[in-house]
């Protein structure tokens, strides 16, 4: 084996939680509203309820989204809201992606 040290190329600082297109769509949707219910977010992103639920678990685990359950006229409603941390993460993600694309050779 050669003794030349192989250094790994520098990894761009990309948030893997947001990098998934479905989760990016959910965060983008929630960043445009104060809060929204499951049906609204599913309609806007084109995700099924199952898919949305699974992505929401990951976003909630990262602290990017909070889920609140409430009753409106005796009908249960789950309200989703982007957190301050989530907004900051989305902003940082956009900045990183734009920077990375700008540095790409043509």
């Amino acid at each position: 084996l050669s003794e030349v040290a192989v250094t790994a190329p520098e990894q761009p600082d990309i948030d893997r939680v947001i990098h998934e297109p479905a989760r990016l769509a959910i965060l983008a949707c929630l960043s445009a509203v104060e809060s929204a219910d499951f049906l609204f977010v599913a309609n806007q992103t084109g995700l099924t309820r199952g898919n949305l639920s699974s992505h929401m678990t990951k976003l909630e685990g990262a602290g990017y989204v909070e889920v609140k359950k409430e009753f409106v006229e005796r009908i249960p409603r789950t309200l989703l809201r982007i957190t301050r941390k989530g907004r900051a993460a989305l902003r940082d993600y956009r900045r990183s992606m734009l920077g990375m694309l700008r540095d790409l050779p043509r």
Partner: protein
Amino acid sequence: MTDIPSVEDIQRRTRRSISEDGLTELGAGMALLVVAAVMFIAVVFDRKLFYYAGIFPALVMISVRSMRARLTAPRIGYAEPARTGVKLGILIGLLGLTVLGVAVAASWRWLGWRPPGWAFNWLFALLGLGGAAALYGNGRETGLRRFFVYAAVVAASSLVPALARLDLGIHITVATGASGLVMTAAGIWWLIDFLRRHQRPAESPAD
């Protein structure tokens, strides 16, 4: 989902979905029509029913929220619009103008002066322009071109009577009446269109 979504497109589409049901302009239009009716009664019959003009917009806001919960939410879901800095700035600006106008009028009267009539016409025209700016901003945020039309109607109906030096009561009646009529009619049209395009799903929307 395999395509990389455009954040701006999703945000615009989301804002558009909240405003496309026509309830915002229907509510605002009805509130303006009540103000116009109260002013008309004050000008023509000399009966001052200004409490109603103050109470009605609050009632309209409550009924718009309730209608949204009953008509829109079961079809496309429920979302609370974001309170952006620009909207808040315009609202604070409008409130500031109103307070300034009242303060100037009160000081003038206290000093024994009679404020010139045109001052209030132009103050009202400025309020109208503030409202038009808010509607224009909503049009830009959502991409719904009809908000540009409302902005133009509100701006024109506020400015033209001021330029024509109409009496303040007539000015307010014309401006709120014209804007209210256009927005109410458009609101009803877009609400019917919305209900036709989005059928109520068979299953319960409960989560």
